[in-house]
C-alpha cells in the first residue's frame, strides 16, 4: 500500500470520519449553537416568526422564584450525586471484594436496579412512598414508628430527598460496578507487601486502595456531576417537579417553560443557564481531578 499516493489514505480517513463528524455537528454542536441563538428570541414554538428580545429572557428567568428554587435543587442534587452513590457504591464494592462464598449473587442483586428504566423505578418508589398505603408507611406503622411516617413526595421539605432515595437505590449499582472493577484491577503485590509490613486494613484502604481507585472515582464523579445538572426523568416521573414546584430542577423548568408555557426563548435561556452552571461548577473540578490521575500514576 505504500506505493499509493498519500491523498488516497487521507481521503479514506476523511470518508470514514465524515459520518461521525456530521452526527456530532448535527446532534451536538448545531443544537447547542441554535439554543444559544434562540435564547435571545421570543418564540412560542408554533408560529413561523421569532422576535428578537436580546437579554430579556435571561432577565425574566433570573427574576422568577421558581427558576432560582430549581437551581438550588440542582445544587442539592450535585452534592447528593457526588457523595451518596459514590460512598454507597464504594462500600458495597469493598464488602464484596472479600470473595466470600456466594458474593457473585450479591453482585447481581446490587447491579440489577441500575438496569431498570427510570420510569419503572419511579413508579415502584411512588408506590413505596404512598403516604396512605405505601410499603414504607405500612412498614413503619407495623414496627411502631407511626410518628416517622410522612407525605414523602408531597411534603416540600423532604420530597427532593425522597426522590434522591429512589435514585440512590437505582444509581448505586453503577458506582458499585465501577469501584468493583477498579478493586479487581488493583496491583495485588503492593497490597500484599503492605500486609507483610504490618499495615492495618484501615491503612491499606486509605493509603493504598483509595488512592489507586482515583481513576474510578474520577469516572464516577465526572458522570455524577453531569447527571446532577441534567437530572429530569426521575423527578418528572415521581412528582413532575411538584407539589407547587418544590421538587423542580432546571431541566424540568426548561421543559415546562418551553412546552407548558409556550416560551421556547425563555426555555432556551434556562438551558443556557444550566450549561453555564455545569461549565462553572462541574468541568473545572473534573479537569482538576483528571490532573491528579498523573500524580497517582507517578
Amino acid at each position, binding site marked *: *500500500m505504500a506505493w*499509493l499516493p498519500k491523498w*488516497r489514505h487521507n481521503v*479514506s480517513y476523511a*470518508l470514514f470520519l465524515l459520518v461521525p463528524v456530521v452526527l456530532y455537528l448535527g446532534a451536538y454542536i448545531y443544537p447547542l449553537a441554535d439554543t444559544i441563538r434562540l435564547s435571545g428570541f421570543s418564540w*412560542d*414554538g*408554533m*408560529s*413561523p416568526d421569532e422576535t428578537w428580545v436580546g437579554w430579556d429572557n435571561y432577565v425574566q428567568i433570573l427574576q422568577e422564584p*421558581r427558576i432560582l428554587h430549581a437551581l438550588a435543587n440542582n445544587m442539592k442534587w450535585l452534592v447528593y450525586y457526588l457523595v451518596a452513590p459514590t460512598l454507597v457504591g464504594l462500600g458495597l464494592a469493598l464488602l464484596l471484594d472479600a470473595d466470600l462464598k456466594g458474593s457473585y449473587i450479591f453482585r447481581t442483586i446490587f447491579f440489577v436496579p441500575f438496569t431498570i428504566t427510570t420510569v419503572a423505578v419511579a413508579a415502584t418508589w411512588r408506590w413505596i412512598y*404512598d*403516604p*396512605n398505603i405505601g410499603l414504607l408507611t405500612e412498614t413503619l406503622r407495623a414496627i411502631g414508628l407511626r410518628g416517622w411516617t410522612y*407525605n*414523602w*413526595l*408531597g*411534603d416540600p421539605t423532604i*420530597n427532593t430527598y425522597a426522590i434522591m432515595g429512589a435514585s440512590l437505590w437505582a444509581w448505586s449499582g453503577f458506582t458499585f460496578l465501577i469501584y468493583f472493577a477498579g478493586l479487581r484491577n488493583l496491583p495485588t503485590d503492593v497490597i500484599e507487601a503492605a500486609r507483610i509490613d504490618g499495615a492495618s486494613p484501615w491503612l491499606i484502604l486509605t493509603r493504598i486502595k483509595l488512592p489507586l481507585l482515583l481513576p474510578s472515582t474520577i469516572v464516577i464523579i465526572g458522570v455524577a456531576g453531569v447527571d446532577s445538572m441534567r437530572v429530569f426523568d426521575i423527578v418528572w416521573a415521581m*412528582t*413532575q417537579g*411538584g*407539589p*407547587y*414546584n418544590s421538587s423542580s430542577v432546571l431541566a424540568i423548568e426548561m*421543559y*415546562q417553560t*418551553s*412546552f*407548558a*408555557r*409556550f*416560551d*421556547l426563548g425563555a426555555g432556551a435561556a434556562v438551558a443556557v443557564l444550566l450549561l453555564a452552571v455545569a461549565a462553572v461548577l462541574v468541568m473545572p473540578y473534573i479537569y482538576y481531578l483528571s490532573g491528579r490521575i498523573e500524580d497517582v500514576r507517578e
Partner: protein
Amino acid sequence: MAHQSSITRRTFALLAGAAGLASKAFAEQVAEFWNYLGAGGELDAVNAVLAVASKQYPNTPIANRVIPDGAVGLRQQLQTALMGGSPPAVSQYNTGYELLDAARSGRLLKINASWDAVNGDKIFSDGVRRIVSIGGDHFAIPLSASIISNCFYNTALFDRLSLKPPANWDEFGDVCAKVKAAGITPLGAHSPAAFVLYQWYGPMITILGVDGFWAFTRGEIPLDGPDIRKSFDLFKSRIASNFSKTWSGGKWSDSVDQMMRGEVAMCIMGDWASGYMETRGWKGGADYDFFAVPGLDKISIFQTDVVVAYKGSQEQTALNFLQVVASPEGQAAFNKHKGALAVSSAAPTDFYNTIGKREFEKMTAGGDYIALPNPYLLIPTGFHLDFATEVERYAATLDDQSFASALGRLEAKRKTLKESGKFISW
C-alpha cells in the same frame, strides 16, 4: 488497496440506497391522529372513533398515535414535528388560549366549511363555540366534554352517617363536620395544581357570579381585591381545610381510590373519576353518586378536548376525520368508552350511565342552566400555571399571609398582561 476502494464504494452505495428507501418510506406515511388518550377507556374511545372514520371514509385511512406525558408531551412532539415540516394530519388540543395561540401561528387549518357542513352553530353550545372559534373562524371540533364541577361521594359512607347531599355551603360545612367527627377525611384532593384550582370554582362563582367568571377570564378582576379574597376565604373554610393531611403530591386516581376504600367521603373532580370507578366495578347511582358543588347547582363547568387539523399534505384526510368527530356516530363511539359527555346536542344519549345522563341533561337543559368552560384554559398561558401553583400552595399550607403576598405578585403580572393585551374577550 483496490479491495479497500471497492469496499468504500460498496459501502457508500449501500448507504445511498438506504437513504433513498428511507425517504420513500417517510413520504408514504399514513395520516395520524396524535393524542395523549392512552389510558384504559380513553384508548378504546379513540379506537372506536377511528373505526367509525375508516367505515365512513375508507379511502382516507387514519391511524392512532398516542403521545406520552399528557398535553405537555404532545405539545413538545407537535412543535418538533412542525419544525421538521411533518405535522400530523390531526391532533388533540386544549381549547381556549392554547387553541388561540395555535390558530394565530397560522399552522392550523380553518375549518369553516366543515363547521357549516355539520351545523356547528346549532349542535354546539354557546360556551363551546366561544372557545373553539376565533374572530368568526373555526379551528377545532370538540371531541368530548368532562364536567369538572361535581362532587362525587361514597354512598355507603353517606348512608352510614345518615348524610344527605348538601344544597348550599352551610350544609356542605355540616356534612364535612359530621364526616370529620366520624374520623374520616371529608374531601379528597390531589396534585397537580390545576386539579386544586378546579375546587376553587364553586367559591369563585358563588362570590363573583357568572358575569364575574367571564370578567376573571378577561383579566378584569383584581387578584388582590376583596371579591377574590372572599372567594378564597370560602375556599379555605369549606374546601381546603377539609382535605386530608397527606393530599399533596398524590394523583387524582389516589383520591378516588381513597374514596372507594372509605378513607375519604367526597371528591370534587372531573367525571373521568366516574369512568375510573366504573372500570373498577362500582356502579354510578348505587356505590357512588354526585351533587353539584354549592354555588354551581345550575352551572356545569366543563373541560373539552378538541381535534384540530394541520396545514400540509393530508388536509382532506384531516377534514374527513373532523366530520366524523362531529357526527352523532363519532361522538357516541368516543364518549361511550371514555365515560365523558358528547359535546354535540345531536349525539344519542342511550350510552350514558346514570351519572352521565344527569350530567348531560343538566349541561344541555338551557334556560337558567348554563355551561361554562374551564377558566384555567382561558387565561394567558404561563399565568395560568403561576396562578394555579399558588392556589395549590395555599391549599397545602393554609397560610393566609404568604398567599396574600402571592396574590400581590400575581396581581402585578395580571396588570402587565392586561396592559399588553394578552387577556382575551371570549
